[in-house]
C-alpha cells in the first residue's frame, strides 16, 4: 500500500478509515512482514551495531579531549575578543555539560568562561598615556592599506577565473535559449517546456513561478492560444532574461548593462528594462560606476561584515581628518583617498572569504581606533569617564553624515530661506537641534559601548547607560537598518546587537566546536539510551542520531588549529564505522515499512469486525465506522439529481460531471418505461436523433444539474445507506449497497481502485 508512507497527509476521513483498518489488524504492504520477522530484523540490527557502538559513542569525548589540549597549547581562546560569540559558546557548552558532564567539555567551558570573565574585567577602559603621538600611531595605516589592496586584488583574480568558467556555461545556456525561442511562434506550449527546463538552471524564483502559472493556465484552458503566445514571447521571455541576468551577476560578478547585453547576445534596451524592474524588485542594486556606465550587482542577503567594518573605518578616518591639522591631516586624507576605491571594489566583489582579510583589517581597525582615542586626549586628564564617553560619542556622531548636514544647513535656514522660500523658526530649530543632538549622542554612546564591550542586548545597554529603554530599542533598530549594527544572536531571550566584526580563525573554530560539542553530546546520549532497549518504533530515531554523529564528524575534520587538524587519527579512525552504522540503520528501517504490527490478509478473514468495534472505540477514542460496503450505481435509473451527494453525511458519494452517453443506448424499453416521463423522453429523443452509437464518455467542464456519473469513494463510505434510501430513482433507486464485513474483500476492492 502506497498510502502508508503518507499517513499524515491523508484526508482526515480517509485517515480515520486507515487507522481503523490498521488498528483492527493491519494492511498488506508490498511484502507481508509478520511480527516475528520485525523482531528478528531489530535483533539483527542490534547485534550488528553493538561492536560499532562503543567506539562511536566514545569518539566525541576523545576528540574534545584532544581539542582541549590543542586549545590550551595554542592559547587560541585568549585570542577571542568577541564577547557575543563567547556567550553563545558558553551557553552551548553548558547545555552539553548538563546532558553529559565530561572532562573535556567541562574543561573547554572553564577556559572559555575564564576568557569571558577576563574580558568583562576589562570593562574599565584603560587610561591611555597622555600625549600620544598621533603621527606615529597612524604610520602603519599606509602599509595596512597596501596589504588590504593586495588581498582585494587576489579576490578579483579569483572572481575573474570563476567568471571565465561560468562564461562557457553561459554560452551554452544562451545558445539553447535562442534555439527554444525560435520555436515559440509555431508551438508556444512546447517552447515553454524547453524554456522552463533551461530557466531552471538560473534558479530564478519569479521565472519558475511564472512559467508554472502559465503552464497551468494553458493546461486548464484559461489561457487561449493567442494569449499563450503573447505570454510566452513577452512575459516569460522577460522573466527568463531576468533569470539569466541573475545567473551572470551571481556567477560572473558585477557587470554593466552593455557587458550583460553582450554576454547574453541581447539588445541592451531589453536588458536595461529588465534591470530597472529588478532594481524595483530589490534583486539588483547599483554598486559603482565603470567610466560613466553604472555597474550592477545582485543584492546580497547579507553584506560581509568586513565590508561594513571597512566602511566604518573609512568614516572614522574621514571624521578624524576634520579635527586634525598639517601633515597628519594630509596623510589621513591620503589614506581616505586610497581607501575609497578599495571600498568600491569590495562592494563590487560582493561575497568573499573574509578570513584572508581578517588580520590586516583588524590591525587597521585597532590602529584607527587608537588614533581616535588619541585625538580625544584633548580633554583634561581629570575628566570623568562619563564625559569621556560623551565626547567620544559626539565624535562618533560627527563621523556620520547625518548630523553634519543638519548642522550645516540649519543656521542657513534660520537666517535665510530655502528654495521654496520657507524659513525656519529659530525656536523650532533649537528644539530640533537639541533632539537631533540627543539622538545622535545617544546612538554614538551605544555604538562605542558595543564596540568596546562586545555584543549587548537592549537590556544590558539600559543598565550601562541612562538612556530610556524604549529609546535604546529605537536607536538599535535604526542603526541596524543603517547597517551600523548586526544582530548575531540572542541572550536570555533578548536580541544581541553587535558592531560588524570580522571573525578570526580562532573565533570561528571555537564557535563551530562549541556548537558541535552540544550536538554530538545530544546525539550520542540518545543513541546510547536507544540501543539499550532497541524497539522497532525507535528505528527512525536511531538513524537520525547516527546521521547527526556522522555529519558532526565531517565538520570536525575541517577544523584546524594553527594549521593542524585536531584529533585527525580519531576522526579518520571512526569515519568508516559511523558510516556503516548509519547505513545499517537505514537498511533495517527500509525492511520495516511501518512499525505497526503486521498480519496477513488471510489472518484478517478471521476477524469478526462487529465484535471488536467496542474495543476499537476504547482504543481510538472515537466512534467506530458503521461498516464496510460497496455501492453499485445504475445509470438507467439515475436522474442526476445529486440527492445522494447532498444527503451523504461523509462526503463519500459524488455526482461527477461525466456523462456515460454510450450507456444511454443500452437502456432497455422496460427500464425506460419505469423512468419519470421526461427523463425517458430525453433518452428516447437522443436515440431517435442518433446517427451513430457514441463511443466513450462525455467529460463536462462544470457540474450540470441532471447529468453526471455517480462515484463512491470507498475510503470515505461508512455504509450508512443514506444515499440508497434518498435516491428518487424508479423502483428501489439507482443505488445499491452491498454490505461487506469481510475485511479482505473490502481491502481488495480499495486497493484495486488505486
Amino acid at each position, binding site marked *: 500500500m502506497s498510502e502508508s508512507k503518507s499517513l499524515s497527509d491523508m484526508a482526515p476521513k480517509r485517515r480515520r478509515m486507515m487507522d481503523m483498518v490498521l488498528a483492527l489488524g493491519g494492511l498488506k504492504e508490498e511484502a507481508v512482514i509478520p511480527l516475528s520477522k520485525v523482531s528478528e530484523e531489530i535483533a539483527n540490527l542490534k547485534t550488528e551495531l553493538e561492536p560499532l557502538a562503543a567506539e562511536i559513542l566514545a569518539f566525541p569525548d576523545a576528540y574534545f579531549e584532544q581539542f582541549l589540549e590543542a586549545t590550551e597549547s595554542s592559547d587560541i581562546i585568549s585570542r577571542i575578543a568577541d564577547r557575543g560569540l563567547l556567550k553563545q559558546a558558553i551557553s552551548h557548552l553548558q547545555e552539553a555539560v548538563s546532558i553529559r558532564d565530561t572532562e573535556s567539555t567541562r574543561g573547554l567551558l572553564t577556559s572559555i568562561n575564564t576568557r569571558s570573565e577576563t574580558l568583562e574585567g576589562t570593562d574599565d577602559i584603560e587610561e591611555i598615556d597622555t600625549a600620544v603621538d598621533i603621527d606615529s600611531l597612524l604610520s602603519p595605516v599606509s602599509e595596512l592599506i597596501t596589504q588590504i589592496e593586495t588581498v582585494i586584488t587576489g579576490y578579483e583574480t579569483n572572481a575573474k577565473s570563476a567568471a571565465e568558467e561560468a562564461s562557457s556555461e553561459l554560452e551554452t545556456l544562451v545558445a539553447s535559449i535562442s534555439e527554444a525561442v525560435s520555436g515559440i511562434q509555431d508551438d508556444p506550449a512546447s517552447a515553454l517546456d524547453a524554456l522552463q527546463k533551461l530557466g531552471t538552471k538560473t534558479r530564478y524564483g519569479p521565472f519558475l513561478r511564472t512559467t508554472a502559472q502559465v503552464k497551468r493556465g494553458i493546461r486548464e484552458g484559461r489561457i487561449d492560444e493567442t494569449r499563450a503566445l503573447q505570454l510566452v514571447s513577452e512575459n516569460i521571455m522577460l522573466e527568463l532574461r531576468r533569470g539569466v541576468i541573475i545567473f551572470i551577476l551571481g556567477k560572473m560578478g558585477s557587470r554593466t548593462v552593455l557587458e550583460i547585453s553582450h554576454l547574453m547576445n541581447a539588445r541592451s534596451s531589453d536588458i536595461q528594462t529588465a534591470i530597472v524592474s529588478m532594481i524595483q524588485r530589490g534583486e539588483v542594486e547599483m554598486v559603482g560606476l565603470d567610466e560613466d556606465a553604472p555597474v550592477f550587482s545582485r543584492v546580497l542577503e547579507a553584506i560581509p561584515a568586513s565590508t561594513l567594518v571597512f566602511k566604518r573605518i573609512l568614516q572614522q578616518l574621514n571624521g578624524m581628518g576634520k579635527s586634525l591639522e598639517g601633515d597628519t591631516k594630509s596623510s589621513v586624507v591620503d589614506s581616505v583617498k586610497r581607501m575609497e576605491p578599495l571600498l568600491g571594489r569590495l562592494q563590487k566583489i560582493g561575497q568573499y572569504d573574509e578570513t584572508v582579510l581578517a588580520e590586516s583589517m583588524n590591525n587597521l581597525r585597532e590602529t584607527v581606533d587608537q588614533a581616535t582615542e588619541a585625538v580625544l586626549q584633548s580633554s583634561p586628564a581629570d575628566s570623568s569617564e562619563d564625559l569621556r564617553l560623551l565626547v567620544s560619542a559626539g565624535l562618533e556622531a560627527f563621523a556620520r553624515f547625518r548630523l553634519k548636514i543638519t548642522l550645516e544647513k540649519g543656521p542657513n535656514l534660520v537666517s535665510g530661506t530655502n528654495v521654496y522660500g520657507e524659513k525656519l523658526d529659530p525656536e523650532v530649530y533649537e528644539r530640533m537641534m537639541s533632539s537631533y543632538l540627543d539622538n545622535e549622542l545617544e546612538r554614538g554612546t551605544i555604538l562605542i559601548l558595543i564596540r568596546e564591550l562586545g555584543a549587548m542586548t537592549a537590556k544590558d545597554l539600559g543598565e550601562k547607560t541612562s538612556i530610556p529603554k524604549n529609546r535604546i530599542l529605537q536607536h538599535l533598530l535604526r542603526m541596524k537598518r543603517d547597517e551600523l549594527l548586526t544582530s548575531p544572536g540572542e541572550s536570555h531571550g533578548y536580541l544581541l546587537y553587535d558592531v560588524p566584526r570580522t571573525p578570526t580563525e580562532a573565533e570561528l573554530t571555537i564557535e563551530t566546536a562549541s556548537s558541535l560539542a552540544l550536538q554530538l553530546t545530544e546525539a550520542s546520549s540518545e543513541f546510547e539510551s536507544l540501543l539499550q532497549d532497541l524497539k522497532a518504533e525507535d528505528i527512525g530515531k536511531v538513524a537520525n542520531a547516527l546521521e547527526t554523529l556522522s555529519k558532526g564528524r565531517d565538520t570536525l575534520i575541517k577544523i584546524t588549529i594553527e594549521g593542524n587538524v585536531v584529533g585527525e587519527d580519531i576522526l579518520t579512525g571512526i569515519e568508516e564505522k559511523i558510516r556503516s552504522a548509519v547505513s545499517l540503520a537505514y537498511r533495517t528501517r527500509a525492511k520495516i515499512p511501518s512499525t505497526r504490527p503486521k498480519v496477513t490478509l488471510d489472518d484478517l478473514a478471521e476477524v469478526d469486525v462487529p465484535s471488536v468495534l467496542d474495543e476499537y472505540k476504547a482504543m481510538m477514542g472515537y466512534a467506530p465506522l458503521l461498516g464496510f460496503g460497496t455501492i453499485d450505481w445504475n445509470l438507467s435509473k439515475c436522474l442526476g439529481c445529486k440527492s445522494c451527494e447532498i444527503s451523504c453525511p461523509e462526503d463519500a458519494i459524488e455526482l461527477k460531471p461525466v456523462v456515460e452517453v454510450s450507456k444511454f443506448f443500452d437502456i432497455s424499453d422496460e427500464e425506460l418505461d419505469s423512468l419519470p416521463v421526461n427523463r425517458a423522453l*430525453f433518452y428516447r429523443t437522443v436515440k431517435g436523433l442518433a446517427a*451513430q452509437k*457514441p463511443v466513450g464518455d462525455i467529460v463536462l467542464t462544470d457540474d*450540470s444539474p441532471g447529468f453526471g456519473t455517480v462515484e463512491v469513494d470507498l475510503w470515505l463510505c461508512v455504509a450508512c445507506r443514506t444515499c440508497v434510501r434518498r435516491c428518487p430513482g424508479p423502483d428501489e*433507486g439507482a443505488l445499491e449497497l452491498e454490505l461487506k464485513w469481510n475485511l479482505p474483500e473490502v481491502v481488495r476492492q480499495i486497493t484495486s481502485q488505486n
Partner: protein
Amino acid sequence: MKLDYEFLEAEVKKLDLAGSVTLHDLGCQDSGLEAIAKLIDENEARLVVAACTSQKIQPRIDQYLQSQGKDPSRITYVNIREHSAWVHNDPSEASKKSLDMIRGALARSVDSTSIVSEMKEVPAHVTVIGGGIAGVEAALSLSNLGYHVTLVERESSVGGHVVQLPVVAPTGKSGKEVFSGRLNALENDKNIDVMTDTTVKFVEGELGSFTLHYNIPDDEDEKTLQTSAVVLATGFQEFKPTMMDEYQYGKNPNVVTQLELSRMLTEGNMVRPSDGKPVNEVIMVQCVGSRSEDYKRDCSKLCCTFAIDNSLEILERNPDTNVQVVYMDIRVPFENEMIYKESRERGVDYIRGRVSMVWESDDETHVRIYDSLLNQYLESTPDLVVLSSAILPSDGVAELSETLGYTLEEDGHIKELYGKLRRTETRRRGVVAVGAITRPQFVFEAVTDAQAAALVLHNELQGGKIEKVARGAVLDVDDCVGCSLCAQQCPRGVPLMIEQTDAEEEDEAQKILFKAAIDILNCHSCGVCQSLCPSGATQLNFLSNSQLWSEIEAVLNEADSEYPITVCFYCEECSVSTIDIVGTRKMEYPASSRLIPVPCAGRVSIIDILKAFEHGASTVMIAACETDRCHIGGTGNEIAQVQVDVTRDILNAIGWKGERVDMFRMFSAEPDRFTSAIREMVKRAQELGPTPVHKGTAGKWMEVTE
C-alpha cells in the same frame, strides 16, 4: 419591409388550428380592440394576435379587455412586425417566416389555460424589525400609506445608533435632533405599535400571511403575530476588536471604539475613562478590522466620516485638544469632503500609516505609530485612543434567513434582488431589507432606502389586496418523484422539499421520501424547475411542455435542408428588448430564422432543443441575458448554458455537429449582438448542410458499423 397579407390570410385559413382569420389595420385602436373583444367572446377567449411587439400591444389589450370584464390570459401574441416585417428585405421570405411563427402560436394557443387573477384580502399590516432610523422611517412611511405597522425593537428604546451620534454629517445636527421629529411622529401615530425589548425568533409563512414568533422579557412563552409583509431594518453592529492585541482594546479603558466615543460625546462625558482626567490628546485609528483579509474585507464606508465628525466635535468642545487621525486612505463620499477640509483647517492632524502597538507604562497609554510618508516611527502618549472599527451586519440576520428565505452576501449582509432595479427587495416576496443591513449606509441613505421599500411593499400589498393566483409554476404533487432538482436550482429558492414521514413509515425499502411544494405567490415564472424536472411534475401554467413542444413542431413544419431553418429561443427579459430594438431600427438579418419566446432562457430544456432538431431545425440558438444579469433572479441563463453545453456534447457524440446549437448573451439594448449572433447561426446552418434528420440517418445508429 412589408408582408404579403393576402398570402398570410389565405395560408392561415388553410390551417386546421385556425378557426377564423381577421385582418385589421388598427389592432391597438378602439376599432381593433372592439374586434378583439368580439373574437374573445366567440372563441372561448382563445386568440392569436399577430401584430407588433407584445410589449406594446399586450398592456393595451389587457387593459381594454379587463375593463370589459373579459379574460385576456389565453391570448397568444406573435410579433410579425419587429421580428419579421421590419427586419427582412424579401417580403415573400418574411411572409413565410411570419406564417411559420403564427402557426407556432396557434399550436401553443391550443392548450392555453385561463389564468384568472383573483384578489385575496390580506391584513393591511406590516411588521418592521429594528427600530433604528431606517426602521422608524419605514414604519412612518407605511403608516402614511395606510398600513397598520408593528415596530419591533430588541433594545429598550427606539433610535438605534443614530441617537448616539453627537453630530450627523453633513447636517451639523446631532443624532437626537435628526431623530426627534420622527420620534414625535411615531408617538402620535396610532397606526404604529412599538414593541421594545422584543426579540424576533423566526418568521414563517408567505406574502399576505407571515407569522412572526417573538419573545418579550419576563415571559418565557413564545408569542406570535400575524402580518402581511416584513421590513428588515436590523442595522449594523460595530466590530469589537478585542482579539487584535496590538490595540489593547478591552484591556485598556482608554482605548475605545468610535461609536463609544460618539456616546461619550453625546452624553457630555469627555474624560479619560480610566481616571476621569481631562482629555487633551486623542489618537484615532482608521480601518480597524476593515479592509483586512482577517476580519472584514471591504471598506466600511462610514468610519472616516464618523471619525471626522467626532474630531470636529471634540475640537468644538475643547479647541486645545490635539487630535491625530492615523489612516490608510481617507474615504469621505458625497459632500462629506467638506467636513474633511474643515477638519484639516481646524488642525486635525492626519498621519498616513498604521498603529504598530499600544501599551501602558507609568499610568500612561503609549502608542507607536508608523508614519508611512515619513518612513518613521512616532510615539505618543494620548489620553484616548479611538478605534474606527469595522461595520458588520447585526446579529441574527443569518438565523432569520433560515425561515425567511432571503440570501446573504459573503460578508453577512442581506443580498439585494437586483442591484440596479430592485435594491431593497430580497429574494423572498414580501420581505424587504432597508438601511445598514444591506450595506453600511449614511443616515440619509438609510432614510431613502426605507421610503423606497415602503413603496415597494405598497405595490405588492395594494392596501391589503394581493393577487391570489398568478402566472407561475404549478406542481402536480402526484408526479413529483422528490429529486429536489427544482429546489436546488430555483433562482428564488421557492420550491421546498417536504419529507413524507407518513409514506416513509409504510415504505418497505426504508426510503427517505420527499415531495416538492411550490408557493406560486413567490414564483417569478422563469421555468427553470420545469426545464429540470425529470417527471414533468412542475410546469408553468402559461407555457406547459406540450405547449412549447407543439409550437416547436408547428413552427418547423416542413423544414428541410433546401431552406435551412434556425430556431431562436429568446428570453422575454433582455433579449426581447434587444430584438425589438433590432426591429425598430430596421436592422436586416436572414429570414430563415424562427423566433420562439420563453419567459427566461432557463425555461429551455435539453429536450426542447433536441425537439427542434427532431422537427428539422438546422441550427438552434438561445438568446439570454448577460452573465450575472439574469433578471429573473440570477441563474436562469446559467441553467440554459448547461442545457446548451450538454446538448452540444451529446450531438457530437451521436454523429451530429455540436456547433448546431449555441447560446448568446446580450444586454437589453445591444441590437448588434443579436444580429451578429443570428447571422452566425444562419451561416452555420448553411455551412453544416443537411442534418441527419434531413438525410434520414437519424435514429439509424444500430445500422452503423464501425
